[in-house]
């Protein structure tokens, strides 16, 4: 009896899952800032890819990714464990991309307008790489709110739920936007559809 009582009073061993984002975040909040490095290592590539997919070019990827993690570092102690860490992280990422694009669009006003967009007629397909370029170019012409959910789904393999949380919208909206993105892409690629759909 006494033995059992003593046992029950003993502190229960804590099972720490090192691969669990929550446990890493908790340790960070408790003062072990070295866990932040582990979080970065786990998620940096996804973050970079989200940025890459969102922006459509790789020039600013690392700069924005840096900003993302700096924001995370600054705010991690206020993390409330109400959503997944990744959801929070990707939301910050997408918002940083939006900020970047907004600034870029403002800058664009002062840049001479280049050739009209959407002209795929003259493009000829010679190699497989060219198809990729054309598709990517076509995707880049989609509006951000359609393009991002589409790529998060088709490239990153996010679920609609994850996309909805990241984009801070309803799942139905995500479903609709992804469909509209695919439809839009089909329209953009229509001039060369015969070649693409072979």
């Amino acid at each position, binding site marked *: 009896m006494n033995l059992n009582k003593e046992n029950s009073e003993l502190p229960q061993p804590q099972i720490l899952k090192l691969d669990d984002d929550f446990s890493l975040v908790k340790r960070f909040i408790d003062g072990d800032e070295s866990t932040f*490095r582990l979080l*970065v*290592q786990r998620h*940096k*590539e996804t973050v*970079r*890819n989200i940025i*890459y*997919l969102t922006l459509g070019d*790789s020039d600013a*990827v*690392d700069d924005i*990714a*840096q900003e993302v*993690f*700096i924001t995370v*570092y*600054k705010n991690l102690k206020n993390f409330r464990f109400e959503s997944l860490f990744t959801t929070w992280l990707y939301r910050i990422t997408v918002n940083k991309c939006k900020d970047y694009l907004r600034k870029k669009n403002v800058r664009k006003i002062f840049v001479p307008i280049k050739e009209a967009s959407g002209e795929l007629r003259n493009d000829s397909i010679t190699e497989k790489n060219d*198809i*990729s370029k054309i*598709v*990517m170019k076509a*995707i880049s012409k989609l509006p951000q709110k359609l393009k991002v959910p*589409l*790529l998060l*789904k*088709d*490239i990153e393999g996010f*679920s*609609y739920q994850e996309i909805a949380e990241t984009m801070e919208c309803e799942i139905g909206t995500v*479903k*609709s936007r*992804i*469909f509209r993105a*695919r*439809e839009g*892409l*089909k329209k953009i*690629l229509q001039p060369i559809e015969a070649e*693409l*759909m072979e």
Partner: protein
Amino acid sequence: MSRNSKDFELLSAYLDNELSHGERVQLEESIKSSLQLQKKLEDLKKIKQLISSSYKKIPESPYFETRLFASLDSKKPWHKKVLKWSPAVGLAFATVIIMVVLRTNPDIFNNLIEEQKSNIAGFYKENLQPLLLTADLNNEDIFNFAMYKQLPLDKDDRKILHIDYDKTGKEFFEIKSVKPIQNGNNLEKFIVALNLDEKGKKQIDSIMNRYAEELEAQILINKNNTVAINSNLWNYQRAIQTDLLAFAEKSNWQEFQKFVPNTVSYTNSRDIVLAVKEIRNTHNNNYIFLTPDSIFSESIEFDLQEYKLQLSELENELNEQNRNQRKIQFQFSYESSLQKFEDKLHSNFKIIFDSNLCRVEILEFDFPDVHFPDFDSLFIAYDSVASNFKFHSQYIPRIEYFDNKIQFHFDGDSLRTYEFEYYKFDLDSSMEFQSELLDSLKSNSWNNFYNFNDSLVFKGIPKLDSYFKYYDGDVEIKLEMEHLGKELKKFREEMKQWKEEFKREFQSRDKDNNGIK
């Protein structure tokens, strides 16, 4: 949204596997029955494939983390940065404090250094004892000091103190490991050369004793390997030398003249005697301390009487205990850390080292000024007398023979080594060799040997070393050479005769052989 659009949207979600079970079953039913839906599904599938095949993930960035954490470091709050840089910040603070301290109290470091210096000086000044008492110096040593400016610091270790003046007249002293001038009892030879009687000998002895007493306080040493040299020591050397020579002149003028270059007259020695008196009366407490790791000058009061009193008390005590008094073994090592001070030393001293020499040149120092009449020429003459006397006392160099040269060594004076090269000995050229050797002996470097009247050289030296012949025995050598020449001539004739006999014998043998054939 039209019915078609709604279905197409479901098709898209169906492709993404995002439909509920019910929705999926229902849609699949619809697809089966609708060609339009089937075609739309195919289109959407192709689009989806195109997208997923077109995009490649961005390559990994190897420096991403490094950059990020560097950036994070720079964005850390100031107190965290201070913590990280605390060593540097601490150093900076310390510098500022030192600067402030120096600004307000510029002499603080000098004072600290001076304090340390005086501590070190105190250590080396402990238990200084007169060299004359500790090293058992005798009249001979003092005589050598007067004439050759050398005093043995430690007879066992063969270390000597050598004081002198450089070419510009600046004082210097050396501590070196050479054999002191011991071979040849110089004082005795001096007495012999002057042909002094018993009275004269006693007078010399009293002169030496009197100076010995005065010299006692001039060189102090202690067990910390310190040599303290009174700045009056150079003057004392002059004084003893002058006094000895003045006495020599007075006691036996005729013999003395043979020592002395004709250019200097000693007849009026009154001025010299006055100068010696002046040196004696000069009270001087400035000592130059040479220690294993520093050199400094300091004024100390060494009370010889007090010291002697203590010493005699100690001696009595020891005698009571039936023990022998232990003497200081002076072992000065100039291979020690002193060398590293070479550049940093007090500018008044310049220290020069080599493998067996520690030379201290005294650049600026307040030496007691004594007015000798015609100082320069007088002392040059004195040194010349001492040098002459050295030869005069039949000091015979050690001679070493090599295959192609002869070396004359003056033990105790490594600088004075004479060397004569000659051709390898060859019977035919033996005459040539001998004459060459003679020529070289007659060269300028040997003028020293011809300064004196021969009669004095040989006087009182019954056993003359055979080598000494070279310095003087012109006639003897000539005779020997003639003898050698004759012998060689005889030898050649014998060879010639033998050659002819041999030739004849061969010819007769040839004839016999031909006859047999």
